[in-house]
């Protein structure tokens, strides 16, 4: 695009406009790069809302596509610039503007890294629960845009539950601030939560007001080794049905425990077919009561082994290993496709059993399941021991079967990663044509020229 660098350089400091081929190459996509890569015409790194607004006005006037980007840790290709144009790298808008103890709220810029935010609020005795396993890098803007969730989802819900208000730059450059800092609002359509999960297709989120909780005083971690995947699924259901709500319940397959053992001393037994990594939080008394209850259930279920980790520092090593799981598995395999089909909690055992059956029929790829079991967010993943066309074919067929299974159990195609381009086909399956048409009309109302992150959410993406 001729003159693009020059024009943008008038709106934003020149060194924050990048058009060298090497830089454009680096902004081709996220963790789904192996499926598809885009190539922007320019990368812009804005430092404040008015710069974003200026860039949007320019893009709107010239009908240039704009793709917002946080850390590029997405697992659905959300920030992949499929139609070129401008990538807006939001990482330089990384200021925590306010942490308000009395209102239990915070105001942040979109590029703040989640783990930095966790640390900052913790220092004040506060707690921001959403903890996607990419938390050391992913941005709050990206979290809001995908409604990210994490292991804490079981007890505390997802990012959307913590968004009180936003500042958004619309495609034509105008700035709006839906929601606010009040704990409740019934003021018309809930635009705030429409932007939550909008994946950069309606506007650019520049700031967010987030709800905070009090930091639970104590934590405890336990690992349960289960005889079979079914037993693990049933144990989760029993724990939840019994009324105990752990802060996190993660479901980890045998293959992954072998990898995690590199991080854990002493290593866990590897005989289990599946493992549950459980965190409890609350006062010491509450934790003790929960622990007793869970131990009782596990014994009744006849699990293989239970390890309780009292020391918080030691427990940290288990959770670090958990967040590195995806990458660690890649040390054994050549490639992975991560799905995030979620099912209602009471259908977990059924879902797990069916996945098991499906896995036993595969020959070219390995179908594994690991994830945030507590809220039915099960992350079936496909691993490639070798990458070739046969394996690709089997993988694609399997993905479709898994999605159909999830939907047939009343689940959803995406529990937390969003749709991007990667799951666009499946969104139609879940929502049906009437809802898709409605979504398109909403999109049109916000983005009449179709410049915001085109190619996403539904098949033609406009």
């Amino acid at each position: 695009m001729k003159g693009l660098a020059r024009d943008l350089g008038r709106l934003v400091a020149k060194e924050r406009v990048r058009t060298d081929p090497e830089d454009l190459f680096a902004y081709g996509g996220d963790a789904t790069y192996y499926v598809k890569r885009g190539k922007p015409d320019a990368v812009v790194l804005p430092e404040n809302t008015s710069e974003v607004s200026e860039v949007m006005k320019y893009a709107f006037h010239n009908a240039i596509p704009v793709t917002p980007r946080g850390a590029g840790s997405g697992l659905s290709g959300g920030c992949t610039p499929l139609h070129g144009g401008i990538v807006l790298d939001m990482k330089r808008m990384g200021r925590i503007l306010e942490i308000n103890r009395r209102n239990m709220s915070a105001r942040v810029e979109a590029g703040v890294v989640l783990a930095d935010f966790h640390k900052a609020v913790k220092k004040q005795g506060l707690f921001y629960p959403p903890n996607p396993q990419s938390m050391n890098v992913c941005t709050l803007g990206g979290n809001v845009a995908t409604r990210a969730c994490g292991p804490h989802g079981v007890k505390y819900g997802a990012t959307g539950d913590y968004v009180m208000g936003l500042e958004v730059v619309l495609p034509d450059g105008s700035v709006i601030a839906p929601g606010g800092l009040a704990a409740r609002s019934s003021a018309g359509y809930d635009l705030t939560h429409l932007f939550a999960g909008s994946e950069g297709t309606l506007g650019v989120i520049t700031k967010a007001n987030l709800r905070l909780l009090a930091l639970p005083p104590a934590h405890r971690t336990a690992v349960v080794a289960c005889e079979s995947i079914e037993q693990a699924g049933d144990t989760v259901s029993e724990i939840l049905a019994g009324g105990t709500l752990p802060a996190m319940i993660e479901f980890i397959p045998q293959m992954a425990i072998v990898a995690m053992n590199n991080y854990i001393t002493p290593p866990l037994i590897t005989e289990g077919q599946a493992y549950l990594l459980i965190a409890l939080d609350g006062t010491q008394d509450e934790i003790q009561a929960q622990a007793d209850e869970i131990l009782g259930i596990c014994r009744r279920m006849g699990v293989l082994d239970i390890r309780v980790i009292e020391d918080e520092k030691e427990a940290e090593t288990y959770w670090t290993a958990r967040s590195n799981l995806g990458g660690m598995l890649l040390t054994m395999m050549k490639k992975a496709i991560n799905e995030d089909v979620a099912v209602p909690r009471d259908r977990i055992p059924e879902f797990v059993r069916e996945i098991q059956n499906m896995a036993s029929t595969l020959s070219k790829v390995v179908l594994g399941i690991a994830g945030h079991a507590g809220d039915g967010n099960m992350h079936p993943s496909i691993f490639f021991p070798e990458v070739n066309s046969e394996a690709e074919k089997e993988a694609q067929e399997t993905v479709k079967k898994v999605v159909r299974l999830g939907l047939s159990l009343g689940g959803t195609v995406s529990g937390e990663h969003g749709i991007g381009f990667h799951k666009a086909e499946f969104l139609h399956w879940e929502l049906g044509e009437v809802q898709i048409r409605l979504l398109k009309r909403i999109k049109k109302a916000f983005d009449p020229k179709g410049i915001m992150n085109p190619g996403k959410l539904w098949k033609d993406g406009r």
Partner: protein
Amino acid sequence: MHDLEPYRDMMAKCSHCGLCQATCPVYLEDFLQTHLARARMDLIRAVLLEGEIPVTKRFREVLDRCLLCTNCSRTCPAGVPVDEIIAAARNQVYQGKRRDPVRRQLLRRFMNQRGMKGLMGMAGSVAHKMGWTPEELPAPASKPFEKRFKGRIPAKGKARARVAYFVGCATNTLYPDTGKAVINVLAHNDIEVLIPEGQVCCGMPALAEGDLPLVQEMMRKNVPVLAGCDVDAVVTDCTSCGMMFKAKAAKTLPEDDPLRPQAEALAEKVWEVTDYLNQIGLTAEPPPLPESYTYHIPCHRGWTPTVDDAPRNLLGKIPEAELIELENPDKCCGAGGTFFMDFKELAADIRTGKLADIRQTGAKTVLTQCPACRSFLRTQFEDGQVTHPIVLLAKAYGI
């Protein structure tokens, strides 16, 4: 590292998860994806392996603007050895010719010739001729370590172990007192020390220069000298020299090189000195030393799991000495070998963050096992001293 091709599979292991964003000091200053390990490797593949994009000035900048600090590799859940891949790429692009001939020659002489006359002035003059500001480099000592200490240093009591001491260039010319503390503390703890003759630079600076032939030249001198010693361990006070011998040396040589088995055997014996002492234990109880200090963990620590905690444990044995922990002890200081000379502003920005953390502790003594960190931090840390942990231990012993 002599060839990129063998790293093709390792590069393919990068899942593009982006987790390396959390620890790459360059990325955390630039906030530009291009300078992140995943993009660096994608570019290396596209440019050098597939030839899809030509080698440009910008590509060379992407290769050069890396500290080879290994933070990304240590963060990477897939264990991709990013630093080695970048070093191999530099070698392929520069083939030893990153600098103009005059600068290259100077660097070669500085790194490859030990004990030559007038070496003391050399560091300064190299820096001057290369256009590096002399104030960023400490003044060389009036007499290098190897002019002061030679041969065998007997253990104080009955020797319970025998070690060879690899004296890094920085200790030799800039910090000979650290070398003195190393041999004194070892001997004081009943360990006999050999200072093998004929050692030269470990080769790390040459590796960063993309000058693999020079690295190999150094290996051919160092490996026989060190591997030939009849000792229980080879110790160094520098984490970069240690990493070079422990984790990289063999890989810098071709697969079928006859020196490779020797380099591999040597690697088994290599220790950073505080790590070694901590593992073997002290025989001399340190007297009290009422001093508080803080501890900066050098980037080149991934070659052994215990080197970062070793000074904490060892100095924890000195009564009344108090460690005030940094908020992020392992955050980079920006030096990166000679990186700070090439990317002055960036390195200084990284250092500013580190110094702010240090000042927050209130400690007047900063300890670290990397001479590059030490000199780079010291130039802007007027409030106190930056030194090697072993120096504090020697001070406690009064030796």
